[in-house]
């Protein structure tokens, strides 16, 4: 994306999420059956959870692309997909933790308990553990090619297993999660203004996720290139300080 477009888009995002924040507190009504002002947390907690799961799926998809994506026999895999997957996992961890914390605080206000292994709580925790395990795996492999390949395989496995959390876990306990948007009757039952703010917030957080993802990918790419330059520069320009050493690319 050209720089000017990107800058304009980012300021638009600022405005959008600022409007969402104001709307969450001024425009949207309070939900019935919620204690005091606590329903306002909905407009942040839910989109963050959506972002966390989007991150998880993104990581899985990029991992599959990394492993199997349209390569002819013997051609190397595309490290950009690996970086994209890793960035998505990290962001999934970030948004997931935020969603979990906001959810736990809300749960405490509403029902007096921070945690009760509600199906959605369980599935977000499982996604977090998965993300953490992915990063632990990356840390445990030294060879770069192997690291990317093994991590991608693990993320792909995660993608396969995750649907079972959505269909299995809800059967086991009844849920304290309110069901205003998607429920058994399939109709949206939320106050329209609440719904507007919620969807606007969802869109905003998605855009924020993609922006953060783009930034993180680029940071990883810069770091990778610097490492390559250092590795390539060392044998041929041994002690020459004016060579293509890392000093020219560091800050």
């Amino acid at each position, binding site marked *: 994306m050209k720089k000017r477009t990107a800058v304009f888009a980012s300021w638009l995002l600022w405005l959008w*999420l600022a409007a969402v924040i104001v709307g969450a507190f001024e425009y949207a009504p309070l939900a019935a059956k919620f204690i005091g002002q606590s329903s306002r947390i909905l407009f942040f907690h839910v989109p963050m959870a959506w972002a966390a799961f989007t991150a998880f799926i993104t990581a899985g998809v990029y991992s599959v692309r990394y492993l199997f994506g349209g390569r002819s026999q013997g051609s190397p895999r595309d490290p950009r997909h690996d970086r994209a997957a890793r960035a998505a996992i990290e962001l999934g961890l970030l948004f997931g933790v935020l969603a979990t914390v906001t959810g736990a605080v809300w749960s405490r206000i509403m029902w007096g308990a921070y945690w009760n292994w509600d199906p959605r709580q369980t599935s977000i925790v499982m996604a977090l553990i998965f993300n953490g395990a992915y990063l632990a795996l990356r840390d445990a492999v030294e060879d770069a090619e192997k690291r990317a390949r093994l991590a991608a395989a693990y993320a792909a496995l995660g993608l396969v297993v995750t649907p079972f959390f959505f269909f299995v876990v809800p059967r086991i306990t009844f849920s304290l999660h309110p069901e205003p948007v998607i429920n058994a009757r399939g109709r949206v039952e939320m106050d329209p203004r609440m719904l507007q703010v919620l969807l606007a917030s969802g869109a905003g957080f998605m855009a924020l996720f993609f922006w953060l993802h783009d930034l993180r990918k680029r940071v990883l790419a*810069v770091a990778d290139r610097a490492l390559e330059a250092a590795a390539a520069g060392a044998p041929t320009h041994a002690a020459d300080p004016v060579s293509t050493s890392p000093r020219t*690319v560091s800050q």
Partner: protein
Amino acid sequence: MQVSGSIEWVMVVNLIIWTGLFLYLRRLDRQVRALEASQEAPALEREP
């Protein structure tokens, strides 16, 4: 408008946090662009 300690303060704090975060991200974007540009340039001069 209500007295301080009301929900409006939470909103204001949220806005401040969001704006701060946003400005930080913009700065990060600028820094990364600068790094990317500096990595492009030496590549042209680097011998194969």
